[in-house]
C-alpha cells in the first residue's frame, strides 16, 4: 500500500551522485548514482565484497566518500549535502528522520536496559519528557511489532533473536522517520522467524509510507519488500530497475546467475 500523493511527489528524498570509495588501492564502490523518492523501497543486492555495505555506510553519512556526494531533503524541505552537516546535525538526523536497522540487533539496541527504555530513549532524545506518555508510546510500539507488553521491563538480552530484531525495528520507527536504512535485517534468523519479520516489515513500510534502502544478499527479501533493485558486483552497479523486471527478466550475466541460484519454493 503505497501512498499515492507521496509516490507522485516529484522531489527526491535522497540523491546519490557519482559516489566512490577507495580503501588504499582497493576501489570498494565506484561511481554509484541514483535518486530515492518518498515511500520508495530500494534494495541493494550482491554478494559479500560487492561494495553494498560500503555504499550503505556512505549513504547514511557514516563513511565519507572518496568522490561524489549524497544530498538529503530535510524535514524543512531544504536539500542539504551530507558532508556539509555538522556532527550534531547528523546525529539529530539519525535520531529523528532516519532509522538504521542492523543485521545484529546488539549493534542497534542497548542490551542491558529494558525494552521500554530502548524504545523510549529515542523519544527522550527528541525532547519527550513525560514518563507516562513515553511508556504508553513504547507499549504501543511493542504491540505493533508483536512483542507482549508484559515483557516491557525485560532487557533484550533475555529476548529471542526474532524478538530482538522486532524491538530494534520499534526503536527505529518510534520517532516516525521518513527514511530507514536496513543492513541484512533478516540475516541471522531462522526461516520461519524471517518470514514473520518480513511480513511485519512489509506492512509497516506501507502503512507509514517509509522510504527504505535495504542491503541484502537474499533476492526473496528484495522481491517481497522492494519496488526497485540495484545489483552490485565488484563495487559497481551492474543492473538496476523495477524489482520484478530485474528478477523475472535479468539481463546481465551476473544477475542471471544470482536469479538462477535461488532454490525453487
Amino acid at each position, binding site marked *: 500500500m503505497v501512498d499515492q500523493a507521496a509516490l507522485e511527489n516529484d522531489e527526491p528524498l535522497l540523491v546519490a551522485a557519482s559516489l566512490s570509495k577507495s580503501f588504499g588501492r582497493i576501489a570498494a564502490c565506484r561511481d554509484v548514482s541514483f535518486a530515492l523518492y518518498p515511500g520508495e523501497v530500494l534494495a541493494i543486492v550482491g554478494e559479500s565484497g560487492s561494495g553494498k555495505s560500503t555504499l550503505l555506510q556512505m549513504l547514511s553519512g557514516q563513511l565519507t566518500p572518496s568522490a561524489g556526494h549524497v544530498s538529503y531533503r530535510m524535514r524543512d524541505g531544504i536539500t542539504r549535502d551530507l558532508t556539509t552537516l555538522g556532527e550534531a546535525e547528523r546525529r539529530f538526523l539519525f535520531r529523528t528522520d532516519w532509522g538504521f536497522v542492523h543485521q545484529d540487533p546488539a549493534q542497534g539496541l542497548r542490551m542491558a536496559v529494558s525494552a521500554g527504555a530502548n524504545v523510549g530513549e529515542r523519544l527522550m532524545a527528541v525532547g519527550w519528557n513525560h514518563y507516562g506518555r513515553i511508556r504508553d508510546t513504547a507499549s504501543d510500539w511493542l504491540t505493533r511489532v508483536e512483542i507482549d507488553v508484559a515483557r516491557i521491563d525485560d532487557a533484550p538480552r533475555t529476548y529471542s533473536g526474532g524478538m530482538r530484531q522486532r524491538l530494534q525495528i520499534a526503536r527505529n520507527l518510534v520517532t516516525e522517520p521518513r527514511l530507514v536504512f536496513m543492513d541484512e535485517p533478516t540475516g541471522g534468523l531462522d526461516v520461519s522467524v524471517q518470514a514473520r519479520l518480513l511480513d511485519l516489515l512489509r506492512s509497516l513500510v506501507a502503512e507509514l509510507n517509509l522510504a527504505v534502502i535495504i542491503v541484502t544478499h537474499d533476492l526473496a527479501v528484495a522481491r517481497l519488500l522492494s519496488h526497485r533493485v540495484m545489483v552490485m558486483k565488484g563495487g559497481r552497479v551492474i543492473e538496476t530497475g523495477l524489482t520484478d523486471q530485474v528478477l523475472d527478466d535479468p*539481463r546481465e550475466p551476473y544477475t542471471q546467475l544470482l536469479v538462477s541460484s535461488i532454490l525453487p519454493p
Partner: protein
Amino acid sequence: MNAMIEIADAKKTFTMHLQGGIELPVVSGVTFDVNPGECVVLSGPSGAGKSSILKMIFGNYRCDSGRIGIRHRGAVIDLATAEPRQVLNVRRSTIGYVSQFLRAVPRVATIDVVAEPLIVNGVSRADAQARAGELLHRLNIPERLWQLPPATFSGGEQQRVNIARGFISDLPILLLDEPTASLDAANRAVVVALVAEKKRQGVAMVAIVHDDEIRHLIADRIVDVTSFAAAA
C-alpha cells in the same frame, strides 16, 4: 488515439548468458491495439510467446525495441521506456494483472488480500471488504475461509481468490493469464460473467485462454501470436 493499449513493433529476445550467451528470440513485430470495452484473446501454441506479450504489457518483461503505449490518466505512457516509478503508477491506477497463480502473502487474511487493490486506491477498509465479500461469494469461496490466509487453500480456491483480487479493482485495463485454468464449470461461468461486466464498464482486456468454449464466450477479437514469431 482512443485505444487503451497500443503496441507497435515490440520485440523481445532472451540472452541466456549462463548457456554460452545463446539468443532466444521470443517475439518480434508485435503490433496491435486494444480499445475500451474490448477483450482481445491471444492465441497460439504453447511457447509462441503469449505470456511474454502479457508480461511486456504489464512492464514485467523489458522490450528490446518497439513501443507499449498505455493510456494512463488521459495521457499515453510508453511502458517500454518508462521509469520504474511510472510503471508502478500505471500498475496502481491503470493496469491489473490476473496471473495463473496467487503470490500468497504469508499472514494476510483472504478478505484483505482481495480488498487490498481498492484500499491502495483510497477506498475505505469497510467498503473495500464489503465488495471483496460480494466477489468471494460469487466465486463460491465459503465465508468461513475469509479470515484465513489463502496459502493453505486448494489450487482452484487460490485461483478464485486471485480472480477476485484482479476483478475487484476499477482499473481500465485488465490482463488475464488463463483465468479459468483450474476452475469447475460453475466457476468458469462466473468468470465469463465478470468479464462481460468489465466490458460493459469499458475496461480493455487482453486474455490468454486455452479453453475453446471460454474463448468463444469472451473474445471480441483474436490476435494470433504465431504471426509475431521471432525470426531466429
